[in-house]
Every structure is written in C-alpha cells, then in structure tokens.
C-alpha cells in the first residue's frame, strides 16, 4: 500500500532590489534594469523540500510516494520562478494567477493560498521562506498555518527527524535553540541557516523547459471576488513615500590626513574617544 505524501513549497517572485541604486541627483530609485527574481529565502525552502523528499524516500521509499510541489501566487510572469524550482528538483508546479488576486495583503494572500492547498490531495508539509524581500513581514506562514489549523514552526534551522507522520525541528530564536516535535500535517518557514541550496541539474533544467505548469484562477479554487485581492484584504496602503533623510550629509573633503583629522575631532566631540 503506497501512501502518497505531498510537500508544498510556497514561493514568490520579487523585484531584485539588492541591486537598487539611488540616482544621486534626484534622490529617487533607479528601477530600470531590476530583474524579477525568486525570493532569496524561497530557494532555501525549495532545497529543504527536495531534501526532505530524498530523506523520506531513503527511509520509507518502499511504502511512501513523495511529491514536492511548488506553488506561487502572482502575476503570469511568476511562472519563471516555478520553472526555476523545477530545475532545482521540484516535481511539479502550480501558478495561482488571476487579476482578482492583485492587491492582496498578507491575510488575503494566506487565504488564497489556503484555498489552493485544499485542492491538493495528500499534502502533509508546507514550507515557506521566512520572509520576502519586498514585503518582509513573515506573516503569510503563520497566517496560512492558522487558517489550515496546523502547527507552524518559523525560523526552522534544522529538521532533525522526519517521518510520514511527524517532524522534529530545531529553530533558532534570538539567543537559544528550541527543539520541537510536531505531528503532520504542519508548516515551517526557513532561513539561510537550514541548508545550502543546490545548483540546478541538467535534467532538471531540461524538465523545467518542457513541463506544463497549470494556472489556477479564482474559479479553480472556488473563491469569490469579495474574498481575494484588495477587496479581501483587511489592510490597505494609503500612501507611499520616500523617507526623508534626517540628516544633511556632510562630505568630508581634503587629503586623507585632513579627512582623518576631521573624523577624529568629531569622535572626540561625541566623547567616543
């Protein structure tokens, strides 16, 4: 009797803002040339999903059929990161995309994801990156887990044991490690310390080119327009602005010795020296 066990990895495409520069004249962001990338923490989530599949297959392969599915909610071009996930060893991918989802806050996102997940039979583990580069709230993981009524361990730094019905996880808090045992189904979020993401494999890359990725919209997941997107959100952005920089920058000119002297005086003034 082969039991099916599905691992769902939720990933998000974000603007590659690590490369953002500021136009020194206008003090505005230079957005040109910013490519969309997979949220960096999500690559660790993908690696963990694939890794868990390998571990489970090694220990229970005879009786367990493990599948890792990548799920992403976003505009159509998010498909690119799902293909990237396939090249890293993910088995299948689903794109959740619909105009109605736009403007979702973390609640609406979590709720929409939960509706999609409920359509997938046999899921036992959900893995997310601990936060995104653009929103960085880290809220979707716990909110999603709450909606699905499953335990959630955030900031997991190591999964020390995994079986088809439970996990033992170590997580790093501010100054201590906590080890928990939780029963499946469950959700976790991961950061950089949990693993080293693998490099794509050649067969993975070839599969990522040819695989068909289904697109699920509002109809496929039985949602109402009122429940998703901006309408389904509890919070709303009413203003976006550039931060005023509190200080006038004083550029220190002169020869290196002069520059050093000026800094030295300042530090002395501040009683640091």
């Amino acid at each position, binding site marked *: 009797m082969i039991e099916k066990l599905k691992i769902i990895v939720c990933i998000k495409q974000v603007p590659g803002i690590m490369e953002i520069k500021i136009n020194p004249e206008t003090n505005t962001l230079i957005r040109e040339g910013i490519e969309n990338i997979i949220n960096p923490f999500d690559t660790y989530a993908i690696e963990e999903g694939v890794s868990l599949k390998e571990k489970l297959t090694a220990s229970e392969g005879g009786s367990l059929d493990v599948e890792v599915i990548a799920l992403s909610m976003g505009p159509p071009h998010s498909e690119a990161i799902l293909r990237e996930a396939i090249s890293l060893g993910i088995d299948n991918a689903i794109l959740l995309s619909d105009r109605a989802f*736009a403007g979702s806050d973390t609640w609406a996102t979590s709720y929409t994801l939960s509706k999609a997940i409920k359509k997938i039979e046999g899921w036992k583990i959900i893995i997310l990156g601990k936060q995104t580069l653009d929103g960085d709230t880290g809220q979707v993981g716990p909110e999603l887990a709450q909606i699905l009524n499953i335990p959630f361990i955030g900031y997991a730094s190591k999964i020390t044991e995994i079986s088809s019905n439970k996990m033992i996880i170590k997580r790093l808090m501010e100054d*201590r490690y906590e080890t928990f045992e939780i029963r499946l189904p469950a959700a976790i979020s991961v950061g950089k310390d949990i693993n080293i993401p693998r490099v794509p494999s050649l067969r993975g890359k070839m599969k990522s080119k040819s695989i068909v990725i289904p697109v699920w919209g509002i109809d496929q997941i039985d949602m109402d327009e009122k429940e998703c997107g901006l309408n389904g959100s509890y919070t709303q952005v009413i203003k976006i602005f550039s931060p005023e920089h509190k200080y006038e920058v004083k550029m220190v000119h002169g020869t290196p010795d002069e520059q050093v002297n000026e800094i030295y005086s300042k530090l002395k003034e501040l009683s640091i020296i």
Partner: protein
Amino acid sequence: MEIKVDVQKCTGCNICKSVCMYDAIEIVDRKALINENCIFCSACIESCKYDAIEISGMETVLKDFSDYKGVCVYLETYDNKIIDVGFELLSTAEMLADKLNVSLSAVLVCSDEPGNLNEIFNFRLNKLYLVKSHVFENNLDDVFAKALVQVINRYKPEIFLAGATMFGRTLIPKVAAIIKTGLTADCTALSVDDDKKILLQTRPTFGGNILATIVTKNSRPQMATVRPHVMEIKTGKIKIDEKNGSESNPSVNQKDRIEYVQFDQSKFKTKYKLINIEKETEEKINLNDYDVIVSGGRGLGGSEKFAMLKELAGLLGGVVGASRAAVDANWISYPHQVGQTGKTVNPKVYIAVGISGAIQHLAGMQTSDIVIAINKDPSAPIFKVANYGIVGDMFDIVPKLISRIKSSK
C-alpha cells in the same frame, strides 16, 4: 475593483512609471497604461500631479466599530522579565491613547509574574490584563494566541500593539488570523488620523527605501507590530490627575489596575511538544550592547581585512559589524550581520567601511545617531544616510585614523 488612468488628465509625463516598483506602468502613445503586474500599492496615485489615476470598485460599506475602544499592548516576557520592546511599545501606546482620548491597557501572558512588573506603572496604564497559568511556561504560539484572542474578544481594544520579536512574528499573525483582522508588521511610525480616528501604520518596504502608510479599514482591532530598538522608551510619566490637581497615588492604583483573566484551561492544549531548549553557545555578540559599531562590507575584500576594523572598534569601545555581502562571503560570522536579514541597530556612532549601502543594509542601521561612511564610490547609497561621508580609500583612511587615535593616547 480596478485601477484606471484618466486619459484626459494624463500627460504621459512618466513620473508614475518611474515610481512603480512592480513594472506595472507603460507609457504608450504618451498615455500611461497600467498592466496586470499592478498590486494596488497606490504609489502612482500618490505621485501623479494631475490626479489622473484612480482605484475604483472598492467596497466602501464600513462596519460599526464603536464598541472597540482603547489601546492595548502585548508585553512579551522572557526569562521572567518583561522585555524592552514592551516598554518601547508602552511609550508609543501612551501617546496614541492620549491623542484618541481613550484608555491604555496591557496584557501579560505568563506562568509567573515577571520581576519587573512594577515598571509598567511608570506609564499611565489604566489596566493590566494578566493571564497566568503553568500552560504558558514556554513560548508556544498556539496557547498564547488563544489567550490573546480571549483578551481581545473580551475587552475589545481598537488598537493592539506587540513587539516583532521572533516569537511575536509567529504569534501575532496567528492572533490576527483567528480574529480575522488586519495586521501591519515592523512599523517604524504609528500615529492617529485626527478626522477618522484610525491608526496610521507606517512601515518600510523594499528594504526601507520606500515607506508605506497602511490602515486597517474594515476590521478591529487594528493590529501592528514594532521591531525592538526601533521606537524609543520615553521614560513614562505618571499622569497628573488634572481634575484633582495632584499626582495619583501609584501604589494604591497598581493593585486596582491588575485584572487576572480567568479562562477554561482545559481548552488550552498545545500541538507543540517542546523537547529541548539550548542556549546558543556560539560567540554571543550582541551588537545592540555597544555604542559604537565599525562595520565592514564588500569593499574590504577578505576576512583578513576585518582585522583593522576590529582594531578601530576596540579603540573606540565598540564592536565589529558587517554587511550581508561580507557575511555571505564568509569573511565574518552571521552574528555580526547588520541589515534586514541580520540585526537592526541604532548605536551612537555607526562607521560604515566599504559598504555600498544596499537597501537591506540601510534598513538595519539608518536610525543610528551618527553615521560615518567611508567608500571610494561617491554615488554609493550609504552616503544618503550618513552624517559624515568620506570618499576615499578605506585601506588608507582607517589605518591613519587608528594611528591618530593611538598617538593621542
């Protein structure tokens, strides 16, 4: 619900396109066109000088929230003490409660009363809700969430604040999801809209280069979290009772103000089995313990180069920090990392050496009192948040600064 550009008003000036972080605006035939990438963040609406962009079709029926009153703060505890962020929150909450002219309360969930409990009465706290049980001996988010939900549903605060600690970042979203209300994380500023009497929650996005003001439109309480060390602890002042013209007597009021919340313990079962707690034995660097941080970035080029920063930091009584680039390159260990994915710091003096000032780094240090930046690239973003900027060769400047300091000793 959709976003539309009024083509009559639009002049194709390109400003909206330049502020859009999501590549959602194209200028076609000198008119702005918004595509499916739009996430309704309103940045373009804000930026348009001609009021040519509008979101329409939104639900506008507002519910009646008149039974939600008051500002409530969750005081997280650790090692039997209320942690600092609790007091930082009380400072801000006091200000909000004053503005709205409503009561200020706090909630504690613990197995034993914390040792520093009395310090909360330095603030004009009307009520402390104390949920006490052995069930709360360890920080398990499901039982804590249940406790907070009970308190919120019973006492109905209109605003609920908590610290964005690691525990808080799991606990509070769960509370918001159970209650089904809005939550804004990592706020850097909280204020009140005088007309609508609602909470304005400002937080950084895109690593801090853009600030967003957010409101919770149609649910209560309005929940927000704040990261530790972001807001100041204003030494709480005991409110002078203006009617009586004298100071309220604190010790009498303290006992009155504590309410022990009763609940059915049997319903508080946890799904988590805590097996073990291990204190982290790796080098205990707490960047926040130091007044001076000397931080190194990609420009240093190697782990050996951090030696001069260590020396400088030592001479100034400080500690070495690092950008993510330096930590990722294994030049220095992760506890030294400053930034969005590292630590948020606000020392007296932050010296950034060879750090370009990638947005995620700035998010972790831009509230420092004084920032001194040394970089050979004059267009490095770090200079935007620096008080003093030196464009120069760090391998020249830093050693010279070190000898200057040493020679004067």
